[in-house]
């Protein structure tokens, strides 16, 4: 049921990638995503796929797990592909009927966009599958710290993420319970048109919101009772420390980015379909 939804699921395993510092992983993922938008040739994608393959192997997370994430956004991928196929103007027309025109450029662009999206999802799922939510929020808090001076609430963002992660399963359980309770009172969630269905959500949403507010209220008081007062003079039990592997990973990142840039420069000389 609702519990099967997985958000930022962590896959426990002993691997080099798991042991890397969350900050390093975040930075690598950030540049990796940027690099995807920089690559514009099939040769370039082949290189990215190769590097990603190595990372997947090193993470010891079964590929099946990562592909699961793609399944859930298949619609978005197909939609993007469709838009690219039909909307791209080009010289080499492959098919034309009425207002529909498909060009070779469009097909290539669509394929590239799909590859880009899939690589993006697999890449970022390596991050979430190998990093615990706590490490992730700590990493984000640390990386955002320099931005605090211009008013980015780094600590608050991290705290909110932690609390959200803590309460998502609780609220999913609660939703399940409320649904069952209203069903027991004869509520019907399955039949009817869209408007009727939306209306029928009220008996679920109202109690759910009330419960969420009640929990928020309780939690605020409990946090206050435990002397929470923002990040002023706050210490952490687990301090983050860079290991040797973290430095190696950073060097790898620089090499990777070097190759990507070199490929981009070389791309100018390649025929467009590569």
């Amino acid at each position, binding site marked *: 049921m609702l519990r099967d939804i997985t958000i930022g699921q962590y896959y426990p395993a002993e691997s080099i990638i798991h042991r890397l510092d969350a900050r390093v992983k975040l930075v690598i993922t950030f540049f990796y995503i940027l690099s995807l938008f920089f690559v514009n040739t099939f040769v370039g994608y082949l290189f990215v796929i190769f590097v990603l393959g190595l990372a997947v192997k090193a993470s010891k997370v079964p590929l099946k797990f990562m592909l699961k994430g793609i399944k859930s956004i298949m619609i978005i991928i197909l939609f993007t592909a469709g838009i690219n196929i039909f909307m791209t103007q080009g010289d080499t027309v492959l098919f034309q009927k009425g207002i529909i025109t498909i060009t070779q450029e469009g097909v290539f662009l669509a394929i590239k966009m799909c590859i880009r999206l899939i690589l993006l999802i697999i890449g970022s799922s390596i991050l979430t599958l190998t990093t615990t939510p706590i490490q992730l929020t700590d990493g984000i808090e640390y990386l955002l710290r320099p931005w605090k001076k211009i008013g980015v609430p780094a600590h608050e963002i991290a705290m909110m993420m932690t609390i959200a992660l803590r309460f998502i399963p609780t609220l999913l359980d609660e939703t399940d319970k409320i649904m069952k309770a209203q069903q027991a009172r*004869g*509520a019907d969630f399955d039949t009817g048109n869209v408007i009727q269905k939306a209306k029928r959500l009220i008996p679920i949403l109202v109690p759910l919101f009330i*419960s969420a507010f009640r929990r928020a209220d309780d939690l605020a008081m409990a946090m206050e009772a435990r002397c929470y007062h923002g990040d002023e003079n706050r210490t952490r039990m687990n301090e983050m420390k860079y290991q040797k592997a973290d430095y190696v990973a950073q060097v790898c990142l620089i090499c990777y980015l070097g190759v990507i840039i070199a490929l981009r420069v070389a791309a100018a000389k390649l025929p467009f379909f590569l």
Partner: protein
Amino acid sequence: MSIKINHLTHIYNRGTAFEKTALQDVTLEIEKGEFIGLIGHTGSGKSTLIQHLNGLISPTEGEILLDGVNIHGDKKNLRSVRQRIGLAFQYPEHQLFEMTVWKDVAFGPNNMKLSAEEVEQRVEQALQTVGIPKELYGKSPFELSGGQKRRVAIAGVLAMNPEVFILDEPTAGLDPKGRDEILDAIKALHEERKITVILVSHSMEDVAKLVDRIIVMHKGRVAMTGTPGEVFSRVEEIEKMGLAAPQISYVFAQLKAKGYPVPTDIYTTKDATKALMDLIGQVKLC
């Protein structure tokens, strides 16, 4: 209306790493008009069992017959099953959502597509049964006290006029006064409407006061069934299942062990006083 449960087994998340057998070959029969106490500690399978009765989950194996008809046989029947077998969940007040007490209680009957007069009559009757005074009908349910909210929520199920009424931990988290109000309402309901009531509870004292028959669940199976007297005289077995008999039952078990001629099927203070007066009287005769 009789309920017959035949070899009911339920396994959650079958075939995954989280596979868990919640019910194991449960066979039970509940007669019309019975007042049943269903006890067992958390994870004993009692919640899973009552959700089956209401058709909210389907058996992995086995069947539930309602007057001889399998309730999971035809999906179209499920809604009528839910009307005939009312289920009030634990902390039912968390499911209140309407603007007024009246409207919230009317939610169930309205879903049954009854006539306006019929709905009105049922809501009125349900609110009366649980003892909610008229001046509260137009109030927002969220303004009420904890005990009142719970009674309104229970009325919401009751207004569907179920033939069997299942209550999951109706007194959880209430103070003694709130608890007594709820239990009195349930008792009145059973006596006046002659409907079958299944009371799920951790509180042996509550169960002991009210029910005709107790079903004890343990590790997904029916471990014991019998009158409160029969069940509570087996203090030691109950303890082994992580449950406790009413305090007074222990007194009589210990007196019996010391060789006094006392009955062991005592579980209310009233019977206890009487039995002890008898005992003291007897000895004086000697």
